[in-house]
């Protein structure tokens, strides 16, 4: 090691006199003794090509310089959504999730980490009210993982192997589901109706079979429009002996009915809209919900925190429900796998729901619908620009620029120059739709933001 008189601030025992003292205590002559078991040919001979250490102040300047090369959605007006959405994050959420206690905790027991168990139990309970179901898990990585696991749960319960998945989901999510469910399960896409974006019921009927483990669709769909035939799809699935899995945007549930009430057996979705910043996609966090049916509960791979009495009368305790399901207990014989996922975002979503309350959730949902409808209407009033689907939608909608003679790519480039991040370009994944873009409008957008967009597009065309 390099000769230095003082320890690195992060490595207390690199102080030379301490190091010496510890080596003496354990009877080693140098740290090399510890590595005696690593054969010479496996030892790294040269020094790693990594820049030399920066002091904290240098680091601060350096990283800030790099970060300043980023342009944020707050410095611009952004209409990007598609699986990661701009929503209002109450300061309370950040206050709680930045508390060092939560931030630096990991895997303590229900005694020294009672607060962690309680916070996650509360998160489960709060989301349960939103989806109107009695069981919610500790968060998964993201919605795609939640959907994948929900489908695997369905396959285990039904002992069937075919998954019917609406084509109207995020293309990346389909990739994730396919990789996660292969090789033993097969994924078949179900078309959507070109007019409304809803699931094509005929296609569904044609593909349902005795092998169908589950039917998966989303509401609202990836392309924004709501799925009005939820109950019918669920009924068809159930009639075929399949399980109905529905993905949902939880921030819509203040105004939209929970899938639990139109036939969903398993509900999943992403918690990011509930008080988590976008973090360049790092804010995603999935949840799964079911009824309190042991058949379903025992198929969760995730930890499920439960409330239970303690030795002390009236005191609440918390702990793992049915731990023996998990791969922690049973390795490959457990249900899929469990490990670090996105607990902090679960706690945050709980804080968000407790802060917003029933009225807040209703108001935010309604406000989003009003704003997005206004935006769609104003955009459609531009000559050559039109809304693609004739169906109700929640916060996202597809705008078709085909008649303008310009590509989405060109339009977005021109918008970017004006400080606007235009809607997600759909031409790569949905070429059949023409020059379409998916616009996202939420409670963070003011009328002025929307009017600015409309004026900008008008001036570009």
């Amino acid at each position, binding site marked *: *090691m390099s000769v230095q008189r003082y320890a690195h601030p*992060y490595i207390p025992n690199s102080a030379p006199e301490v190091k010496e003292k510890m080596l003496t205590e354990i*009877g080693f002559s140098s740290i090399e003794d*510890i590595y005696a078991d*690593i054969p010479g040919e496996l*030892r790294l001979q040269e020094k*790693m*090509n990594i820049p030399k250490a920066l002091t904290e102040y240098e*680091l601060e300047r350096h*990283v800030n310089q790099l*970060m*300043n090369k*980023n342009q944020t959605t707050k410095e611009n007006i952004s209409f*990007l959504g598609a699986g990661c959405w701009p929503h209002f994050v109450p300061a*309370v959420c950040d206050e709680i999730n930045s*508390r060092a206690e939560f931030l*630096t905790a*990991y895997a*303590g027991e229900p005694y*020294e980490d*009672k*607060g962690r168990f*309680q916070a*996650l*139990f509360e998160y*489960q*309970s709060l989301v*349960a*009210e939103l989806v109107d179901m*009695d069981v919610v898990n500790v968060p998964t*990585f*993201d919605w795609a993982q939640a959907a994948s696991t929900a489908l695997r749960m369905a396959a285990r319960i039904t002992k069937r192997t075919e998954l019917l998945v609406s084509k109207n989901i995020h293309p990346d999510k389909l*990739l994730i589901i396919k990789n996660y469910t292969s090789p033993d399960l097969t994924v078949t896409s179900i078309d959507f109706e070109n007019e409304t974006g809803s699931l094509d019921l005929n296609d569904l009927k044609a593909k349902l079979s005795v092998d169908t483990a589950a039917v998966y669709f989303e509401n609202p769909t990836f392309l924004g429009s709501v799925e009005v035939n939820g109950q019918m799809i669920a009924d068809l699935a159930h009639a075929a002996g399949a399980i109905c899995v529905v993905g949902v945007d939880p921030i819509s549930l203040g*105004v939209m009915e929970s899938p639990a009430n139109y036939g969903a057996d398993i509900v999943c979705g992403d918690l990011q809209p509930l008080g988590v910043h976008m973090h*360049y*996609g*790092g804010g995603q966090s999935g949840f799964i919900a079911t009824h*309190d049916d042991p058949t379903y509960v025992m198929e969760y791979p995730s930890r499920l925190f439960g409330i*239970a*009495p303690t030795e002390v009368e009236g005191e609440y*305790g918390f702990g793992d*429900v*049915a*731990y023996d399901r998990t791969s*922690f207990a049973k*390795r490959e014989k*457990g249900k899929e796998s*469990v*490990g*670090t996922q996105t607990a902090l975002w679960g*706690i945050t979503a709980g804080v968000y*729901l*407790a802060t917003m*309350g029933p009225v807040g959730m209703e108001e935010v949902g*309604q406000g989003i*619908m*009003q704003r997005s409808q206004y935006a769609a209407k104003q955009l459609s009033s531009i000559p050559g620009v039109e809304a693609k689907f004739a169906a109700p939608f929640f916060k996202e909608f597809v705008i078709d620029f085909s008649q303008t003679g310009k590509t989405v790519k060109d339009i977005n480039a021109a918008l970017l120059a004006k400080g606007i*991040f235009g809607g997600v370009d759909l031409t790569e994944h949905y070429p059949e739709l023409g020059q379409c873009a998916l616009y996202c409008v939420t409670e*963070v957008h*003011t009328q002025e933001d929307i009017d600015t967009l409309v004026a900008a597009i008008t001036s570009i065309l």
Partner: protein
Amino acid sequence: WDEPVIFELSQPGERGVEVPPVEPQIVETVGDGISSLPDSLLRKKRPNLPEISQYRVIRHYSRISQEVLGSDFNVEIGQGTCTMKYSPKINERFVRSPKMAELHPLQDESTVQGMLEMTYQLDLYLREISGMDKFSFQPGSGTQALFTQASIVRKYHEARGEGEQRNEFITTHFSHPSQAATAAVKGFKIIYVPADENGYPDLEALKGLVSERTAAFAVANPEDTGIYNSRIKEFTDVVHAAGGLCCYDQANANGLLGITRALEAGFDMCFFNLHKTFSVPHACGGPATGAIGVTAELAPFLPGPIVDFDGERYFYKRDLKNSIGKVRSFYGVPPAVLRSYAWVRALGADGLREVAEIACLNNNYLYHKILQIRGASAPYIQGRRLEQVRYSWQQLKEDTGVTTYDVQRRMIDFAHHYWTSHHPYVVPEPFTLEPTESYSMAELDEYVAALTHISQEAYENPEIVKTAPHNSTGHRVLESVLDDPDQWCITWRAYLKKTAQG
């Protein structure tokens, strides 16, 4: 604190925050918004969320936060194999900046050059550390990295037309449960190499297990015993000879940075837990990142997209020929990448090596001290531990009846914690300690003193240990309730239903 469940704080009419109002002109233009929904999709009654003012929400969560023993508060060396090291506060400031928090993953690449640059540079650093040729930061944890490895293994053999044939995945009992579990999800049959009497995987046994059905061999080195397998290259050679791939679980890499690498040991891929080895805080269990690195041959199998650099600008490379697709939305967890980038830059090559050396020194110091505690032992070969040790209270249990769970609960009374072991308990009455480089000698001594004290108690007055905890805000939970479908309550609404007075 004896804090109620949050629903009990509800007072109708209170609210925690208001929602931004909709401008009158919008309402004029579109009406109430929700009428566009068909009746079947209109929510019939509001969700039964609590109604609480903002201050009380804060008070509730602030109080229960104090009932969480985060690593900023205790000498968190008891999370064996989980490396609770110091997460520098400056890095938290970075990730909380809008320049990170308010980025959308689908922004134009020109507007996120800073983020891409840090990602690409961290890739380069990890290549230096491992010898691999390309990293993906998409997996959201060690478990997801293990799953990604298994996915690559499957895709690799499929691409070579051996997908059906090579369906055996070889691992060890000391591996993380997710190792076997994720490979099983990918349809593999799990084969275990037994440990020999010294705690090493048995090389001769491995030779008997490999065959044309072998898809891969996955192992950590050191395993959670902290014992480095010096013949590792022979293992990977055996597997390669049989046509299998070799996957390196580097959850225990903290003692090896700058010392030895995956490449030279013959691995085709490896992963690092950024949330452990590279100092991203655990956050009660994620979000996290398991950065997966592969050799050039396997690079086309990685989940996409991958950040690349053309000498002028950073961009996403999306054309990965044999990509397994994706494992996590977008690009994984960018704040973890940022923190790790900053951590590496704060240490440099020399500092990283110092991390490894001091982590090992601390562990050997601790090992030395713990073996002096009555009733404690460290099974398998003596000495030769790197960055952690799996110990055993078997002797203590035999002598006093006190189990590792009893000691664990009693440690809480001293504001300490330890973790036992993954299942199955190959080591009886286990406890696994990994001190990392982050704690001072005095803190290690304090931790040892607590264990020593409890051992004494066990020999002199075992009841006090068996009935612990005594200083926790919570008391012993009636655990049977949690395994009984008629009694378990996974949500407050279920609790209300199941405990309703008839």
